[in-house]
């Protein structure tokens, strides 16, 4: 019956012509720009790209070189502690160790303190999803239905707060920095807050509503690996406690790679440290809680400054320089081929 429809209108008198419209679109004659890879455009593009990349690359390398960074692996230096932590039954025992280092020159500028973990696969698929964002928003949710399992509830049904494997495995070393003067050491003032993203602290994470935190978390239990409940994370600062704890928030932002660092503290620029860290001997005093030996991991503590282009990683600058060089060289090669072939071409045209 299909053809019927198409033939029916024939009855009409002088129906409109079936001639196609003569529009530029239908006749495929739209005005168009046809880029042509002529020798001039090719060479200019290569040289332009090359020059630009070289310039940017040099800038980047220079700025990356200005970054001062001290990285100290303390997983072996605290071997006693690490052995202690290998046995999970000793988890409640405290263990401290100190790591000394020397700054040969002043580190001026904001100094950031990171803890670094190696071989800790925070990006494992099942690890990444093991959290409940709704719970962290302070909502009263049934975490059993979330992705937190098996770190959602205890056998007796008590829900964990916060739930999930990420929260459970939170980095719980405490690191303090001391500036060793000749006779005594003064503790370098460190900022505990303001290290996380503003939106995380203010939008993404909320404590449950209640008149105080302990009542807000009543009826929940801490995750199994934790030593203290979530509302005891920072007893001094109410705004840095519970889910709003900066260390917790930062830990919950899972890192992209197995080797990573997380911002831990910033040096508070007051008094002696107003311009940054002066040269001299320093000591990290670490309360060693986080076990890494069982996954052959390592722990670092890192002091670093930051520039506009990021950290001390010079890769981007190198990449720019290399590609800039490559582009320029290519330009030269093309120019050379062109010059060489031009003679031949005329030869052939005859």
């Amino acid at each position: 019956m299909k053809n019927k429809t198409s033939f029916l209108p024939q009855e009409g008198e002088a129906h409109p012509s079936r001639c196609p419209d003569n529009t530029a679109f239908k006749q495929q004659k739209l005005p168009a720009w046809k880029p042509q890879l002529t020798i001039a455009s090719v060479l200019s593009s290569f040289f332009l790209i090359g020059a630009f990349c070289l310039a940017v690359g040099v800038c980047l390398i220079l700025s990356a070189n200005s970054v001062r960074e001290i990285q100290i692996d303390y997983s072996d230096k605290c071997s006693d502690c690490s052995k202690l932590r290998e046995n999970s039954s000793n988890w409640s025992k405290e263990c401290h160790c100190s790591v000394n280092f020397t700054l040969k020159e002043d580190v001026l500028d904001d100094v950031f303190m990171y803890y670094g973990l190696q071989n800790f696969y925070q990006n494992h698929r099942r690890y990444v999803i093991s959290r409940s964002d709704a719970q962290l928003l302070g909502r009263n949710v049934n975490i059993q239905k979330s992705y937190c399992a098996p770190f959602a509830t205890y056998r007796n049904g008590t829900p964990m707060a916060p739930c999930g494997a990420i929260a459970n495995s939170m980095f719980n070393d405490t690191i303090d920095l001391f500036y060793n003067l000749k006779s005594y050491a003064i503790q370098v003032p460190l900022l505990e807050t303001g290290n996380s993203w503003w939106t995380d602290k203010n939008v993404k994470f909320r404590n449950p509503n209640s008149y105080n935190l302990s009542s807000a978390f009543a009826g929940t239990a801490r995750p199994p690996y934790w030593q203290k409940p979530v509302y005891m994370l920072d007893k001094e600062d109410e705004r840095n406690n519970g889910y709003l704890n900066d260390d917790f928030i930062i830990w919950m932002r899972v890192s992209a790679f197995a080797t990573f660092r997380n911002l831990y503290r910033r040096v508070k620029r007051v008094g002696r440290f107003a311009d940054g860290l002066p040269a001299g001997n320093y000591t990290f005093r670490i309360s060693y809680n986080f076990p890494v030996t069982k996954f052959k991991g390592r722990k670092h503590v890192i002091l670093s400054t930051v520039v506009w282009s990021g950290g001390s990683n010079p890769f981007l600058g190198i990449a720019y320089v290399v590609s800039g060089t490559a582009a320029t060289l290519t330009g030269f090669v093309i120019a050379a081929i062109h010059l060489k072939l031009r003679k031949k071409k005329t030869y052939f045209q005859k």
Partner: protein
Amino acid sequence: MALSVDSALYRWRRRGAESHSQSESESIPLLFSVRDKPKLTLNKWRIVFPDNGRQWKDWKQASTFYSGNRIRTTKYTLFTFLPQNLFEQFHRLGNLYFLFLAVLNFFPQMEVFHREITILPLVVVLLASMIKDVTEDYRKYQFDKMVNFSKTRVYDKEERAYVEKCWKDVRVGDFVQLQCNETIPADILLLYSSDQNGICHLETANLDGETNLKQRQVVLGFSSQNTLFEPEFFQNTIICEKPNNDLNKFKGYMEQPNHERIGFNIESLLLRGCTIRNTEAVIGIVIYTGHETKAMLNNNGPRYKRSKVERQMNVDIFLCAGLLFVMCLVGSIGHGIWTGNFSMHPPYDVPDENGNFLSPVLAGFYMFLTMIILFQILIPISLYVSIELVKLGQVFLIHNDIDLYDEEADLPIQCRALNITEDLGQIQYIFSDKTGTLTENKMVFRRCTVDGIEFSHQENARRLETHKELDLDDEDFAKLQRFTLPPMNIERPATYKQGTMRPLRRSQSARAHFQGHTRNRSLGRRDSNQSQVAFSSTIEKDVAPDSRLLRRVREAALQTENLSPFTHTKTSSSLTDFFLALAICNTVLVSTTTEPRQRVTVPPPIKPSGITLEKIHQIFQRLKLASLSQSFSSSQSSSELGASFSAKNTEERFAALDCYDNDDDCCASSRGDGLQGKGSTDMGSASLDEVFKSVTNSSLPTDFCYEAESPDEAALVYAAQAYSFTLVSRTPEQVTVRLPQGTLLTFDILYTLGFDSVRKRMSVVVRHPLTKEIVVYTKGADSIIMDLLEDSAKDDICAERRMKRIKEKTQKHLDYYARNGLRTLCIAKKVLNEDDFQKWANFRREAESAIDNRDELLMETAQHLETKLTLLGATGIEDRLQDGVPDTIAALREAGIQIWVLTGDKQETAINIAYSCKLLDQRDCVFTINTDNEETCESLLNLTLEEVRKTYQVEKPQRKFFGIIPTSFSVPEAPVPEFGLVIDGRTLNIIFQGGLEEKFLLLTKHCRSVLCCRSTPLQKSMVVKLVRRQLKAMTLSIGDGANDVSMIQAADVGIGISGQEGMQAVMASDFAISRFKHLKKLLLVHGHWCYTRLAKMVIYFFYKNVSYINLLFWYQFFCGFSGSTMIDYWQMIFFNLFFTSVPPLLFGVLDKHISAETLLDLPELYKSGQNSEIYRLSTFIITMLDTFYQSLVCFFVPYLTYKDSDIDLLSFGNPINTISLLTILLHEAIEIKTWTLFHLITMISSVVFYFVFSLIYNAACVTCNPPTNPYWIMEKQISDPTFYLLCLITPVIALLPRFFIFALRGTFGATLILKAQQLDKLPKGQRDLEIQKLRSSKQTTSGAPVASSASKHDLEQNISHLCLSSFLPPAAASVSHRDTESQGFSASEVNPLRKQIPEEGYYFFNNYHLVSSKVTAPGEDGNKLTKDNAHNFNYGSHRRSVSAVTL
């Protein structure tokens, strides 16, 4: 004669008896058992009882078994929609794949995405298809409803009257009454027509698109014709075949209460969907209803073909599946090892819900499945959807190309197959029909020979020439006026006038010629009456008569007038007979031009024309005495005619009423003439001049339109008209012809034996109105007719010799016609005596009413009649080449396409057409292979092959020499084609039967063009299939007629020409064009574009998906092969769905790497598509390598940048996502050759949309998408300078190699395509110049493999020498053997005209080029001979030297 008739009678009776007994045993018991066990009966025959008061019980019982007339073309009903639709959709592999992945994702061990997300694509696809199906189905439903509730008038037995009923309520057995212009509701057996002859006219445009009217006839022998049909008295039972879809076959019989049977066939069946025309009212009984009607059974959906690119794509998809498997395997093994490395479970290895850990092996296995889910888009299901969309766009653009629009027919190109557009760009072989495809199928009467005397019709030839020039002039003029677009009215006065010919008037000349861009929208010209009637353009209608012949015709008339036929009667009578035969022996319908659909079925009455019946008799008695040649010459003496002219013209159509009664009688007309003629008796002394003056006067104003089924017929009728033998009216029973003298002569048609391709002839049996003789006029193919001629008159030696001479001469003329590319027809007659005729008529009647093997019986009877004919003459009809055919063929050939012509025509005609359309070149060596013998055939093939190979060996070193020079013009792999092959149907058969296909193909590969003559439709399709299968080549078939259908269907791409021969070819085709020349643009431009676009798009799609998925894959190495992703799922899905989908689609529809003009000017560009240069395995693999490189860059540059930093998972993924988006789009940007505003907009909007979407999505949603949480990621990133630095450098690094190669190619590469691209940039004049330069350089390099034009001549000499040399020595011997065993050519004859008709096989070896004198010496001899032999033929050129080797 009598003997043969008797034996035939015996045979016929025996057969008849057989069939009778057979049918009785089958049908009669069945018939009775209807009442008890109707089921048994209905599975072989359909039995229809009339739905009237008498038989309603039977009817009721029977009708329950037949479906009603309600149609339901919808696929689904309201309730079955969901399950049925889902069921059908899951038949698609892609959907199953999606479903599998979605289900897989529901297992927690493998869950990668949220459960909902994996279902989403599936749901979207399913929903989209569902919506499409629903709307489609709803439209069908609406249409069905409209059809079902249309009204028609059906007989109601209670009310005993026709009442209005809906179509859906019509049942089998109902009587339906239809008025003029009504549409037929079901298949109806015609029982009554208001037309007194029982004729009903039918327009079948709805069915097959043919606009000419078809005749249908009331069941023959059914007697209720004179009285008004009364359903109540209809007691017959109708037995006919089961419903089938054959529109041209239907048979059955009507059993009367007295067990007498009346047979009927398709001629009595009114088909559903057709429209009644020209008939006031018809009544019929419904036979098939609803879905059982032939129209509905024929209604099958569009064709589905898979293109070559898609086939290649499927291979690549399998490669992708392999890649997927490898990647998943790497993931699973990696994960297994990674997990196995732990002695203790680390805190980040999360146990399952019950706190258990998986073993490494099991974890690895689960990871395999997880990875499949993760990498699922590696198998680009979306590619199929995209391809379909792109093809729709391409088809839209092709359809709208104004250059492929035919103004005369008001038809744009029709794309019937939607999914093989890109195949148009890869065609390697074209198989073309000749008639109607290469030629116009506008048959123009060109020459004729009567009684062995040839009439060359010089004036006519001149007229045709002028016509052509006029055409050209118009076009040139239009070209000049290119930018003014005037709707020009070009009416050129004819340059000469002659005789009765009116000024040459071009009916279509009023059309404006618009070219290219300046064409405006012109209104359709369908409203003009002219174009509605097939085969009636001016060029066909106006035939300038040959003055010599005209004189003779007049003389003949004069002689009859003088009643002195003793001297020249023979010639004159056969002249009149000849033209009478031309006018009568056809099935042409006559209509007047004023009202095109008004049939002239009644001869115009003649005013009392001054002749008495007695006188006529007297005249004819005398005539008979004078000549035994059974001829009729002009019947009435011219003296009586003067009076008859005055009134005739005006009253022709209207004053027919009083003739009605007479027409029923057999010899009414002559009696009528006689009665009318009583008034004036003695006007008999008007002078001859006067008579002719009045003749010319009278014939001027009357203008008849002839609607013929085939153009040849129309041409012949017009030719007869030119000699004043005008066909005035035609009914199935009578035909009226106006003679030169103005007399009207009405013949009773006793039988019409229609044309069929087996008999290759048609005949009419008429009773002469005056002599009362029964005359058979036959016309048909010369080869057939010549065999059927009466051997010789036994009594008269003189006459015998004369007949023989005439026959010989005619044969000679026929050969000459054929050589000049004319279509030949022989006209013959035969006089039957009454007894013989009665005998024969009896057979015929029986044959007609037979049911079983009726066709064979009819054929047999026809063959019986058409024997012992007397040759009257022969005609040569010219079938003009269509405009631009040689040009198109040359261009296509330059494009590297091999063109074969498969035709049913004669060899000579075909060869000549081939020369005239440049299919064969003058320089070519043409091999002709005609043989009946397998061994001969094989040895001939071997011989030719050897010959061809010899030529190569000469060529090869030269080509090598050229291989060194780094010209980029790829020397085609096929050798330079300098050979043509002509082969006929018989030989083809032998090749197919004898397993010689491979040799044949090997030979054809070396040939520039191949002509297959005298081939049947089956052979045509076999040839196409052979090439397609054995050579794995892309084939295209183009044809216009029903005989091309099989060939069209056999090829990869079938193209139908919506020409003059109906719509069957179009219906079977993938694309329908209206002119052959459109093929040029369709292939060279649209094909090239479509292929390039689609191929590039497909490759790009693979690139896009694989490079994106690779990013995820590389990440697996850093996340312990855990199936983790760094990109948010929604952004991932949207990446494919929105951010990167539109630019490639647009690219696939709009990109134009070379302009249409350049593509047309440099056909060689087509070769890139032919060789699949853009999309083949190597390009795919190269692209994949590039893809891997790019994805590595896109992943590792950000990785190294963010290494050892505090970057989090999604913040790392975000720049990667952005980078890959930019890289993918920039990659596309490099590929795009033509940037229009659309491209720019989509590119920019894709990027903008990505950022806007990401920003909004990352800001709006705090926890709406657990467990991933991309909150504020994008915002954070765009405030970070590193992000921008990364986004700048990574695409640069990723695309630098590609760009480098592009730059190298663009600046130094000298491929033709790049050259063409450069040409496009030049201003027009300079461009043309450059193209000329390029082409000329090409001709020297690739046209003939000799660089300098100086050596070109040498080569030609060389080749031609080669061609002939081996044949020369035997030629010198000039001994003619017919020894096939001797294996080889023992003799040859160098004389084209002393041609022998070969018995076993002969072998032409033609060289159409004159070269060195040594070689051409015999050729010149031949020419001399030609001149001698060719009396009055004037050879256009003597360029051919032919050597024929007879084996």
